[in-house]
């Protein structure tokens, strides 16, 4: 049904109904100054909604468009259409964008940004379109009963269920994978006690090393999953307490007499808010790396420093280890990146560190000098909204 079909019947009644249907809907028309005369015709068709007319190039000046329908009239070049559509989308992401024009090549290609495109000859369809649009938007917003809403809620429920199951799956699978590993590890400890021959001791050590490597990969996968799914638990944090939480996690490091408390120095401390478990996981990773890649000529020293910087907290973890070659630096946070075949890690550690810091709303940066040491600088928000 178009306005024309109704012409002879009761145009006034139709207009009134239409006005009620789209009550509250506002319309902005963008056109070239030279086309304002033609736009008057559209304004006449849409006079129930008293549309406002602007010039191309005024999008920025107009600012955020509160109007719900934006009409671009005769943008003549493809580039002009793309540019203006993009400008409108940035300022008013949820508006309905209608383009009227002719012979714009590939106009339908822009449907990601443009909701509807009409040829000049179809101008009379505009009121009808707006009517449909309003009806559709009412269907979507009417509470509870609407199909769209119900569908969304069902999908959401389904996703929550899948997330929960995936979480359970990761823990169950990791447990089932680790159980036999811990049994073998236990048997190797016993073997070490009972068989003292030098060769056998060496084989046992190598077997332990291999199993711990596999175990570390499973631990990393669990840590990755945990960071992805668990919600933030913000509480007050004191750095020295955090460090004492690390000790058990670093138990398996092959360090001999090196202990966390022996090589980590907390240089500054004031309380701040963050997610304790995530921060422990981050420091655990960084400090165990510092110990693993310590310089053979000296004992490892790790300094933890922090300062306030406006609305942020800057946490610096620096060591005196072997350092990282420059060409590795930009890749060390990548998934599965390892600096050499000899490294014992899964290639997930620093990736998880970066993802965890991201989850905490912060950033991480690395600086390093080969043979001198490595410095990680973590910036975190001081408060969580």
């Amino acid at each position, binding site marked *: 049904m178009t306005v024309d079909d109704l012409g002879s019947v009761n145009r006034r009644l139709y207009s009134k109904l239409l006005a009620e249907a789209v009550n509250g809907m506002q319309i902005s028309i963008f056109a070239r100054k030279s086309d304002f005369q033609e736009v008057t015709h559209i304004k006449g068709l849409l006079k129930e909604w008293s549309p406002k007319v602007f010039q191309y190039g005024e999008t920025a000046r107009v600012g955020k468009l509160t109007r719900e329908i934006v009409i671009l009239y005769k943008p003549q070049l493809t580039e002009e259409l793309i540019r203006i559509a993009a400008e409108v989308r940035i300022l008013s992401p949820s508006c309905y964008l209608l383009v009227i024009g002719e012979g714009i090549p590939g106009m339908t290609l822009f449907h990601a940004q443009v909701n509807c495109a009409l040829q000049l000859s179809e101008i009379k369809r505009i009121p009808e379109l707006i009517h449909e649009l309003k009806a559709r938007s009412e269907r979507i917003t009417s509470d509870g009963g609407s199909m769209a809403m119900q569908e969304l809620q069902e999908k959401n429920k389904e996703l929550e269920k899948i997330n929960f199951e995936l979480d359970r799956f990761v823990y169950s699978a990791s447990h089932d994978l680790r159980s036999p590993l811990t*049994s073998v590890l236990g048997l190797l400890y016993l073997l070490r006690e009972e068989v003292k021959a030098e060769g056998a001791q060496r084989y046992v050590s190598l077997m332990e090393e291999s199993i711990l490597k596999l175990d570390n990969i499973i631990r990393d996968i669990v840590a990755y999953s945990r960071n992805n799914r668990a919600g933030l638990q913000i509480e007050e944090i004191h750095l020295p307490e955090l460090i004492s939480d690390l000790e058990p996690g670093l138990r398996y490091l092959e360090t001999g007499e090196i202990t966390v408390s022996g090589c980590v120095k907390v240089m500054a401390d004031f309380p701040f808010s963050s997610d304790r478990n995530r921060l422990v996981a981050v420091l655990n990773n960084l400090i165990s790396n510092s110990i693993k890649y310590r310089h053979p000529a000296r004992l490892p020293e790790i300094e933890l420093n922090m300062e306030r910087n406006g609305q942020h907290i800057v946490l610096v973890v620096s060591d005196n280890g072997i350092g990282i070659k420059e060409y590795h630096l930009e890749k060390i946070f990548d998934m599965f990146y390892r600096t050499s075949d000899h490294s014992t890690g899964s290639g997930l550690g620093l990736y998880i560190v970066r993802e965890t810091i991201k989850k905490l709303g912060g950033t991480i940066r690395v600086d390093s000098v080969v043979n001198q040491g490595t410095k990680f600088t973590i910036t975190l928000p001081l408060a969580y909204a």
Partner: protein
Amino acid sequence: MIILIDDNPIDTFIHTKALELGGYRGRIEAFHSAEKALEYFKGISTSAIEPDSFVLLDIRIPAMNGFEFLDALKRLDREVIATFPVYFLSSSLDLEDLQRANTYSNVVGFLEKPLTRHMVAELPGIHKVAS
């Protein structure tokens, strides 16, 4: 007395050995299902419970798991059993398990498998049990 509850006989073997290597000389009872351990607790007379006894309990045991076992112990409604000290000994990395374990007043620790003689040496009361 130390009571081991774990469905994997390899693990109870390892844990028995680790306890011995850690200097423990007392009695060790191993159960490969929580139900069997529960039967044992049902039948035990208060006077037969040696001081400083404790349980090393796995979490993921088929049929009745570690938590269900603790709930069942509580339901036996005998003070001496409900307060029997329990260490969880598991390879679980699930923080929820850890949090849940902390809700039981008689759970005194959460140990990660495998048990080693160094861990045994750090268990409080282990030498008192040994004497």
